[in-house]
């Protein structure tokens, strides 16, 4: 699209600008020699979803299905690299969780791997679920544990060789945020009841202000999971972009001796990526439980407010 616009502009402006724009066009699209155009598009291949899976034995071409249209929306169900890694993370999660549960059920005192998982589970219960949602929050523990470990495993899979993190795909994080949205509303409705939940949407203002208040409140319901989605996506893909760009520096300098410096930087950034993987899984889980707790807690306020306003 941008190319045709450029052609129109150069036809209207002068001959000199036509020549300049032509050269620029050639450099960017064909990547003359070691041009930036070539390197950038090559590196982008590692960051984006693709229909080929890279293994040490060569690239496996993944099955592609034709996109089909359902009511104006095009759905493409072909299996891509990120889908494969989603499944790998899911299978790993189920295996690890069942192994830990069995190990803890067999012995009276937790031992080994089950002990390690129990430390994390107790941390999530005591630091994330109970402070935000009260003792009622323990019934949401399966969801919080699943969120935390699933996101963590997906993030960590992106750091191993030949791996890629599915959370670097905005569709995956959008799906996780959609589930979080459903859980937040479910927790609020279950704690307050449908009537109180909708009453809370009005925010307790005079009924003349409702046409303004309700759309704003509904919009506010959607911004929080949206921020969750973008935060996780941008953190993961940003880290990968930095790593890939630093390795691209080696290709630009084209020397073995100078390549040591970018390699050192990449090792440092990999450590940061490891920390960010854990941190982002924790932040996602913590913010979801915080929003659920906010929805559950306002029941006390609402009842007091309604008793006061019941005077008129």
């Amino acid at each position, binding site marked *: 699209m941008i190319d045709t616009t*450029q052609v129109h502009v150069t036809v209207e402006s002068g001959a000199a600008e036509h020549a300049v724009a032509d050269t620029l066009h050639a450099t*960017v699209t064909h990547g003359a020699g070691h041009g930036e155009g070539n390197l950038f598009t090559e590196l*982008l291949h590692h960051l984006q979803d693709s229909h080929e899976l890279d293994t040490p034995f060569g690239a496996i071409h993944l099955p592609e299905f034709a996109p089909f249209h359902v009511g104006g929306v095009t759905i493409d169900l072909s299996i891509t690299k990120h889908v494969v890694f989603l499944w790998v993370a899911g299978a790993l999660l189920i295996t690890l969780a069942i192994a830990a549960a069995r190990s803890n059920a067999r012995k009276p005192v937790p031992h080994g791997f089950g002990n390690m998982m129990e430390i994390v589970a107790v941390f999530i219960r005591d630091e994330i679920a109970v402070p935000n949602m009260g003792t009622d929050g323990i019934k949401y523990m399966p969801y919080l544990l699943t969120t935390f470990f699933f996101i963590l495993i997906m993030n960590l899979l992106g750091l191993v060789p030949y791996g890629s993190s599915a959370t670097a795909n905005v569709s995956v994080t959008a799906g996780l945020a959609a589930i979080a949205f459903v859980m937040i509303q479910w927790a609020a409705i279950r704690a307050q009841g449908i009537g109180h939940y909708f009453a809370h949407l009005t925010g307790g203002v005079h009924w003349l202000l409702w046409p303004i208040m309700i759309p704003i409140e509904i919009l506010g319901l959607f911004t929080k999971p949206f*921020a969750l989605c*973008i*935060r996780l996506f941008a953190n993961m893909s*940003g880290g990968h*972009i930095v790593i890939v760009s630093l390795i691209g520096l080696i290709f630009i300098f084209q020397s073995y001796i100078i390549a040591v410096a970018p390699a050192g930087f990449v090792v440092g950034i990999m450590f940061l990526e490891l920390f960010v993987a854990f941190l982002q899984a924790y*932040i996602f889980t*913590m913010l979801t439980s915080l929003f659920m707790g906010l929805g559950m807690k306002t029941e006390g306020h609402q009842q007091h407010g309604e008793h006061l306003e019941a005077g008129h």
Partner: protein
Amino acid sequence: MDPKALGYLAAGLGAAITVIGAGLGIGKLAAAAMEASGRQPEVAGQVRTSMLIAAALIEGATFFALAICIILATK
């Protein structure tokens, strides 16, 4: 000017200004956290937890702007 060049320029400038905002915000946050830990060392753990949470929220907004810059640079 070439629209594509303007796009790249905007992406670079946008990323730079975004990082300035994030750096300032998280710097103020860290300064307040250090001061609070210095005044009352026994709540240092809670202060650290709250600091991490606030830093993640600020970075969330930052990364939103950064995602727009990335989209601008790759299209």
